């Protein structure tokens, strides 16, 4: 459950809601599924609310095929200027 992508998390939530709607699962299992659903919701909230945009400049690939990057400066300057001049 921990490694769900956002898309998978949403799909699982949909599944849980449908199970609760059908009303076919027992009371105890309904409770368990509800708790699982709340757990997934919390993690989704966290991912969305805490996210801060990261921008890097992709400069190339090294010999081992890994990315060579550096922080992307340009727009930071521009947006700072934008903020300062309102």
């Amino acid at each position, binding site marked *: 459950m921990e490694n769900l*992508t956002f898309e998978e998390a949403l799909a699982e939530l949909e599944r849980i809601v449908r199970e609760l709607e059908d009303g076919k699962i027992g009371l105890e299992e309904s409770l368990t599924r509800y708790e699982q659903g709340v757990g997934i*919701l919390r993690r989704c909230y966290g991912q969305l609310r805490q996210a801060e945009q990261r921008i890097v400049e992709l400069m190339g690939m090294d010999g081992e095929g890994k990315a060579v990057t550096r922080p992307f400066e340009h727009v930071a300057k521009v947006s700072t200027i934008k903020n300062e001049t309102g």
Partner: protein
Amino acid sequence: MRTLEPPTGIKICSVSELTRAVNMVLGEAFPSIWVAGEIANLKRASSGHIYLTLKDAYAQVRAVLWRSTASRLHFQVRDGLEIIARGNLSVYPPRGDYQFVIEEVHPKGLGAQDVALKQLKEKLVRLGYFAAERKRPLPRFPRHIALVTSAAGAAIRDILEILGRRWPAAQVWACPVRVQGLGAAEEIATAIRRVNHLADIEVLILGRGGGSSEDLAAFNREVVAQAIFTSRVPVVSAVGHEIDVTIADLVADKRALTPSEAAELVTPDCKQILDGLQACHGRMSDLLLNRFQTIRGRLQELAGRRTLAQPLERIRDRERRLDDGEVRLHRAMKQKLAKVQQLTDAQAARLETLSPLNVLGRGYSLTRRESDHVVVRNTAQVQVGDRVVTLIEQGKLMCRVEEKS
């Protein structure tokens, strides 16, 4: 000092008056003319008007395409293009030069560049570069977004701002490239291929710099088309304007009309998603609560039903009926006994009335012969002088018969 006196009878006019006069003459002499020439020094102003020079081998004239005319163009105007245009002449007073105001323009045959472009497009169609079936869907919640565009200009700034607002969860990988000039096409292609070497990138935005006077020729080159075609990563192209669609736009998986639109196409709106999550939360809670209330209701209803509230009642009921039965039985028996008793009493009473002893009670007496105790009913049964016993209610009398009658 001697001042020069103008000769009398000659009209002296101002520069403005001269200019106005020339304008009128030009307008009257050339109300509508067709001119053929080659475009040079083409500049697109931010206002949307296009200023250019029309020239041939020996002469040139300044020309202008107002924005309204330019927006109706169905081909791309650029330096070197041979055109045929209809328009009129006027003077631009602030500069004192005359200009050819174009009202209608057509390409004169096809320039070499246009032919080459046309041929390239046909080739790419044959190779399936523009096929609709090839277009891949864009990821819904990308975690890694690549950006291949000019580092200068408004485009990259707009894209980054919108990405940051809508879906900050995604990391942006910027690949600044030159978008026009010699070698630009190769740089663009290299950047696209580099992005494809990173396994995590889920979508790529290809943009121009943002200036309207840009030459988009690099995006019509085959090397760029090939890089997009072979890209494993889906490409969103925000290169062409409304009317001048480049080959890059046609090969891309999705075409955006503006850089901002491109940013919106690749990301969800996280505010909307958050609202959706909250609604989901509410729904789940409601469903669970409903479930509990339903079950509680049923429990209460069952508890209310008498069979469950007093499960022994049926047995008690039966017991009471048995008791009742027993009582009734007793009573009945008693009554019967009583009745029987009554009967026997009654009979006894009757018997008693019939009993001779009872007769005695009423004053009668009973006479028996002393000898054999036979009851005397008849005078013939006794002789005078016989002894008889007379039984009265209270005692016996020994008697002798004195007389008979």
